[in-house]
Each structure stands twice: as structure tokens, then as C-alpha cells.
């Protein structure tokens, strides 16, 4: 399907906070089976509309390979947006946010839009982290904040879409260099006639050492 822009997202946070469930809830709610190993599991893409424009969100979830921390860091690069997720029923996942944020800032494009998400808002009775605490943390570090429930789908759409809006605004402001794919933004095929940099199509941001960030 054609799109005006493609935004790459990453989802980060401790294990068990519901990252993959958020993604599942937002995308087609079901992963494709792996019947062809050369294709693997395709997941995490969805089309949204902002300002009348079709935008494809491609969300990277490193679920399962977090322990390969030397390699998962490289996913940060080449992402335009990040969802930083903690679990409102587990204080420790909130306490680790600083580390995650440092990590993300260090390894990513400096313009990356980060949204803080307090997940599992359906488990109010087991809440350990107050909503105000999340808000305060977000304010302090310049993040957008939202509480979601991957289970009930509350705010899930909004979380992804609001992040996209923020990125879109930054593009409009000219903050993002949309010609550099390392920023995690790609202009849709038919929207980039004047953009030779995108001619090759294939390569992700990860393949351009030395470019773009830090």
C-alpha cells in the first residue's frame, strides 16, 4: 500500500512490561506464522492517517533478544520514535527508566521522539506507580506520557498515533532530515521523485556507519 511517510519505532523497557502485547494490540493482533524461515515472523506494521496523509508505522520489538544487548542497541539507531514502557504494577520497571532513557539517548538519533508509557492500567488494584509519578518523570525528561492497557486496548492507539503526530510535526518544522534514512523516516515511493538518496530503497538506517547521529 502506498504511504506518504514511513516511521520506524522501537519499543523498549524491561521484560514483562507488555511491550509485545502493546504491539500486538496495535497491529493486527496476531503474528503471522513462520512457515517460511527465510521470511520469518512479519510483524509490527500498521497504516495510520495524520493530517490526511497515509503514514506507515513500522515498529521494532526486540522481544526475545533483549539479552543480546550488544546488538539490540543498534536498533535504536534508525528509529524516529521510541515507546519507553514500564509496568505500573511493578515499581522496579519504573526505576529502570533512567537507564533505558540514557541508553536510548546515547544510541539513537538525537531527534528521536520518545513516549513514556505506563502499561497495565487495567490492573488498578495492583498499582505501584502513581500516574503523577509517570507524568513528573516525563516532564523532567521532555517525554510525552500516557497510561495504557494492552489488555483492554485503552490508549494504545493514542500512544502510537500521538508519537507519530509529534514526529510529523518535527518534519514540518524541518527538524528531521528526511533524506537521511538513519533518522527512521522514509518518504513513500511515489512521494519522493526528487529524492535520489532514497533510490535504492532497501537498506535500513543501520547500514550507514558514521552518519547522522551522536
Amino acid at each position, binding site marked *: 500500500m502506498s504511504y506518504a511517510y514511513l516511521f520506524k519505532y522501537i519499543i523498549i523497557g524491561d*521484560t514483562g512490561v507488555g511491550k*509485545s*502485547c502493546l504491539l*500486538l494490540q496495535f497491529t493486527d493482533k*496476531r*503474528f*503471522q*506464522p*513462520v*512457515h*517460511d*524461515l*527465510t*521470511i*520469518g*515472523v*512479519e*510483524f509490527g506494521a500498521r497504516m495510520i492517517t495524520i493530517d490526511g496523509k497515509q503514514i506507515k508505522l513500522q515498529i*521494532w520489538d*526486540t*522481544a*526475545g*533478544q*533483549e*539479552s*543480546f*544487548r*550488544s*546488538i*539490540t*542497541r*543498534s*536498533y535504536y*539507531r534508525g528509529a524516529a520514535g521510541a515507546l519507553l514502557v514500564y509496568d505500573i504494577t511493578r515499581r522496579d520497571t519504573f526505576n529502570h527508566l533512567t537507564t533505558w532513557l*540514557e541508553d536510548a*539517548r*546515547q*544510541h539513537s538519533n*538525537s531527534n528521536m521522539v520518545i513516549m513514556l508509557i505506563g502499561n497495565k492500567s487495567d490492573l488498578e488494584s495492583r498499582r505501584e506507580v502513581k500516574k503523577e509519578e509517570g507524568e513528573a518523570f516525563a516532564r523532567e*525528561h521532555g517525554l510525552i506520557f500516557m497510561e495504557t492497557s494492552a489488555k483492554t486496548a485503552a490508549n494504545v492507539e493514542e500512544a502510537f498515533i500521538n508519537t507519530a503526530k509529534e514526529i510529523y510535526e518535527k518534519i514540518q518544522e524541518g527538524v528531521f532530515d528526511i533524506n537521511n534514512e538513519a533518522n527512521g523516516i522514509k518518504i513513500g515511493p511515489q512521494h519522493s521523485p526528487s529524492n535520489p538518496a532514497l533510490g535504492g530503497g*532497501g*537498506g*535500513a538506517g*543501520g*547500514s*550507514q*556507519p*558514521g552518519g547522522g*547521529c*551522536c
Partner: protein
Amino acid sequence: MSTSSSEASGDDPPPKPALPRDRILINVDRHRNSSPPFMKMPPALPPKMTKPAQRTHSMPGDYQKSPHRKFAVVQPISRTPSNGAGYPPTNVVPPFNITPSTPSPASTSGYSNSVFTYPAQGELPYGTSPSGYVVDLPSGSASSVSSGSFRHSMDTLNFSEPDYDLINDQYMLEGSETSSTDGMLQAASPDPPVQAYIHMFGDYSEPSPNFFYSAHQGPGYNGLEMSPYDNLSPCMETSPYDNVQYNTEQPSGSYNSAGNIFRFSHLTPEAGDVPVEAPALPPKRKHLDKDNRRHYTSPSIPSPSMYETPSRDKSISLIEPSPTSTSLEDRPSTPEEKESKGDTATKPSTLDALDVSDKLVFKKEVGYPRKYHTMPKTKGEDGPDLRGGSMDVLIVHATGADKNDLMFYEAFLTTYRTFITPKSLIDKLLYRYNKFRHMSDNTRKRASRNAFFLLVRVVDELCIGELTEEIIQILMDLVFKLLCDGELVLAKLLRNKMLNKCDQRKQLALNNNFSPLSALSVSVKRASLFDFKGEELAEQMTLLDAEAFQKIEIPEILAWAKEQSEELSPNLTTFTEHFNKMSYWCRSCILTQPKAQEREKLVNRFIKIMKHLRRFNNFNSYLAILSALDSAPIRRLEWQKQTTDGLAEYCTLIDSTSSFRAYRAALAEAEPPCIPYLGLILQDITFVHLGNPDMLEDGVINFAKRWQQFNILDNVRRFKQVHYDFKRNEKIQTFFNNFDEYLSEEALWQMSLEIKPRGVRRKPEPKEPPPAESSS
């Protein structure tokens, strides 16, 4: 003990002091006062001359051609075989010890010290005293055994006479032990019992080839069809083993009147056997009580279901819980389970069914002749047609699947842990084995046998950590029971698998305590990356990787998707750590070079190493190094254009576009030996787990999900089967020092900033980088 026995039989007692302290000795005897049960076998052996004659009938090839043939020579043994064979009865006795009036030569020559050895793991499996590892029974116990039991055991043994043939052939099939044991048997020997014993059980310390693994090549698994199990199977259907059961009807119920001959009553479930209470158990064994009970109360033959005893309601869940249950863990026993006790005729459970194919759920499109339940085929679904079934249906289907549906057989074995624990599966298979083993018709006997073979395979593929004392005990009991039933081949098969496992566990324990100190590691001059060829370095990296990769057990990967736990997946965690360490080591090598030129040289050196790693299909190290060269602290520095261009080329392999299409294609083309990047495998298995329900809509197990898991895991197994044959280079390994010397990420970042302070293009960070610190 005779010399020959100590050489050839691992069961023969190594002198106690020679044993590592982390082993426990369980003899053969917990019946130490008597000769071990095995010892009785030999006397039953007819005069040796008969041996060669029998063997001519029973070459391996004969099995399939004429299953009955080999047993033609078997005579329904005389009731007093020991006398007939010219051995004093006292030799024969054994386990249920009847203090022989004359001391048995065997026991005085050291048999009674025979031990099984296996590593202790916290708790001793049998009645043991905390202070000692050898199980001692009160010596008075023996006298209470009736002569009936004695006689019975002799009969059993005698009936099993043809088993020597079978076993011989088994050896020949396995190809490992024939020469030594066979030759010994034929040689005149002063000690026939020992030899026959050795002959029967071989040397467990010498692992026999693993048929299933070696057969498991490629998707067809055709190798399985040639396994000795299949060859043996036809014989068993009509084997005199079963007759043994029926012909030995002497009462043997008084074994444990003194309560000392514990755990043996279940071995001889003859008619007239009086169900007896479990003897008092040492406190430690309390948790096993339940299972023991089940054994003690075995009913009379020919009851097909020895487990269905009055105490059954206390036994573990053997029957499928209600299909509406959606939780895969901690299924409670259902009423259905209890109802089924003892009355299978009116209330057949799935585990008792011979054919469950009408209960399987298949894809809709497939035109099966019968009225299979079908589910609508989901978009994009591919692969095998079987979509699901209840737990017991799947288990029963698996028991018969080794010949008809090898893919399912393998997939079941690979993924069953997602819906049943190994212990419960073993219990259920045991139940089914016992259910049908005394049945006279071949179909049922085959069902019993198939359950047994699946059980053996399950045991063979247990992870070391899964081999709990409880499972060992269940299996030991089964081995004893098989022996007493005359099922010597089956007993040997199972026992060898078990002992191999125990050996592995022992080895593992030993290895963990063993850290070699190379003389090179104390050498003064530090080597550098430039002291070795890139190819050599790549080879040695590959060796390290391969070693860690081989240790990963498939179920660890499966468990990872559900819970990322170091405990559940220890080898996987080690492997991952190795990957990370290697990457940080590589970064440290480069960033600790003060001169830009040197750093550049190093980067190019690593690129060259990657070239070789790619050639070796070692994607793991390849990515570890790539992730280092591509990491922010290194990437942000200034490099020559040719360096960055060279690197970019290597990066295309791991380009994440289309779910790593480039990498997956490369992997699919790679000829083993190959070490894949495990992170992506873990990701795939995680997504399959997260993205697919465990159960289908109607409450049966979603086997389509298991097919997907199997696909992923089988690929890993395929890679694990082929090894690299590089030679270990100690100099290089010492130089690597297991990649233990590296700087922390913060330190690396700091060094990078020192080399090249933040540029003007970058906005100032609100936060200072953390202070550098070394992790090594």
C-alpha cells in the same frame, strides 16, 4: 570381582574410594544383603554351548523377516532351572533375599557391592542414610522372603534365556559393545554369572550411538525407520516375554512381610500377589510416597492396568483434564480422572484408546476419509494438517506416530513441554505401557510397546536439569520391573538411556569445577591481534562459539519464549553472555588504542576476521563483531572512507528490513557446520509464543502453534548436529582469555568522547556521561 567384569561392566563396583565424592552409590542395591537382582540372570543361562547355535537364528536382519523365528528355540523353561543349569540355587536368588543357606559365591566375590553410580543432586533418591551413600538394608530383611519369590525369579530368568540373543543382536545393531562382550561370553569363563551379566548390560559408561539423534537428519527422519527398535518390535509382539508373565504364577506375595524388601513387590505382579502397603520410608522420600504407593499396590496379573488400584485416586494425574481447561499449567485433577479408576471398560479414557485419529483436529481443506473435526483454515496458515487435539489425544497419537507420521513424532517430542511436564508425560506413557502390556492381541501389545518407545525417546531427550531424582526413581523402578518381567531388551534400552543421562550430568558437574590453567596464560608477553592470522582467529572464535552453542539444549530455547530465566535456560544465558562479551571485547580492543592509525588497522583487522567468520557460516561471532564495529562509540569516530564502505557492505547482512530478510536468506543457504545468530531465533520463538494462543477455540491444544515452534527449533537442532573440525590453538585461546577482559559500555563511551569530543552538530545532552569504569 573378576577382572573381566570390572573392565566390561560399568555396573560393577568401582572401589568406593575411587569414586568422586559427588556421586552416590546406589547399588543395584538397595538390597545389599543379597546379591543384586541382575546377578541371578547368569545362572539361568544354559550351558554356553547353546549360545552360538541360538545366535545363528537371530542375526539382526532376521527380525523383520521372521519375527517368530528367533524364539523357536526357546523352551518354556523348567521350573527348576538353576539345578538344571548346574548352578546352585543360592546363586540365583537375590533381590528378595533369602539368606541363602550357603553363601553365594557371587556375593562373596564382590557382586553384592555392585553399584550403580550416579551423581548426587541434593537428595538421595532411595532410602539412604544421610551419612552414607550406599543404601543399606537391615540385614535381617532377607530371611522373610518366601521361596516362592525365589522360584519365580528364577523362572523369569530362565524364560528370558533367549534374551541373550536379543541382547547380542542389540549390541550388534548398536555396534559398540559386541566385540568385547560377545567374545567374553563365548570364552570359557570361571564365572559365568558375571559374564552373562556383563553381556546383558554391557558397559554403560560406553555410550551407545544415539540412533534417534543420528537419524534425525533433515525433514524426513527416514533414519528412524532403520532404528533397532523397529527391528526388534516385531519380535516382541510375539515374544515369549509375555508368556513369562503368564507362566509364572507362583504366589510371591510375601516378599515384604517384614517391610524390608521395599520397592520390589511391583516387579512381580503375578496372580496371587497380595497388594501390600508401602514400607516405612525415610523422611526424605516422603514426597515420593504417592508414586511408591502406586507401585506397591500393583494388582494381580493378568490385570491390564496395574495402576488402576484402589489407591489410584491418590496417584498423579494420568488422565486428560477436562478439555475446557485453558490453563496449561497446574491442571488440577478432574473428577473424570478419579472416575476412570479401575473401570476402563465402561469409562474408557483417551489414554486407553487404541486409535485417537477421530479426535484430532485437522485443517478443513484436507479431505480426510473419516469425520475428522475440522477447524477453519486461517489465513496464511501452512504446513502440516494436524491442528490440534487434547493433551491425551496428542500423546496417544504420538505413541503411534513414529512410523506413520515422523514429523509429528518429532514435533511432539520437541514441543510437548509447552503443554505437559516431562514427569507427567512419563507417567502417562508408563500408564499406557502398563495398560496394554499383558494384552494378548497384537494391536494392544503394539500400543504398549509404542508407548514404551516414546518413553525411551522422552528419557533420551531430557535435559540434564529435568532428570530429577523423582524421574530417576520412576525409571529405575521400571527397569527393575522390566527385568523381573523378562523384558531384558527393553530394560537394557531404557537403562542405557538413563545411565547415559546420568553420566552426562556427572560430566557436567565435573566440568563445572574444572578450570584449566594454561601455562601460556602466565606468559609475560601479551599477544596482540596482529600476532595471528585473521583466519586462525576466526577459527578459534568459532570453536568457542561452537562449544557454547552445542551446550544449549533445545528446550531451553522453548522455555525462553515463556520466561526469560537464567535458571531455566542456563546454557542459553551463557551463550548470550559470550556473545556480548565478545562484542565488548572487540570494542575495547579498538578504543583502547590511543592512535587513530592503530584503531583503523584494528577495525580493518576485525573486518577481515568477519570475512572468515562468514565463510565458516559463523553468524554468531560475525554479528558480535559487527555489533561492535557498528556501535555508537566506534561508529561516531572518524574513519577512512574505505573502512566505512567496507563495513557498510558487511552491515547489509543484518539489515533488519523485512524481518531480516537478507540474513534469513543467507542462513537458509548456509551449509552446516553453521552457528546461527541466536537472538533472531529467540525473537521468532517469542513472537510465535506471544502471537498464537496455546489452545484452540474448543479448548484443545493448538498444535499449529507447536508446528511453528518445531520449525524454528528443528532448524537449531539441524545446526547443532554438525561440528567444526578446527584444532584448538592454545596461544590464541589464551590471547582471547574467553573475552573476559573488556571495558564497560560507559567506559567505552567515555573513551570515544575523549578521542572525539561531541561535535557542534549535536545538541548538548542534559546529562553528563557517567564516569568511566572498568568491568574487568
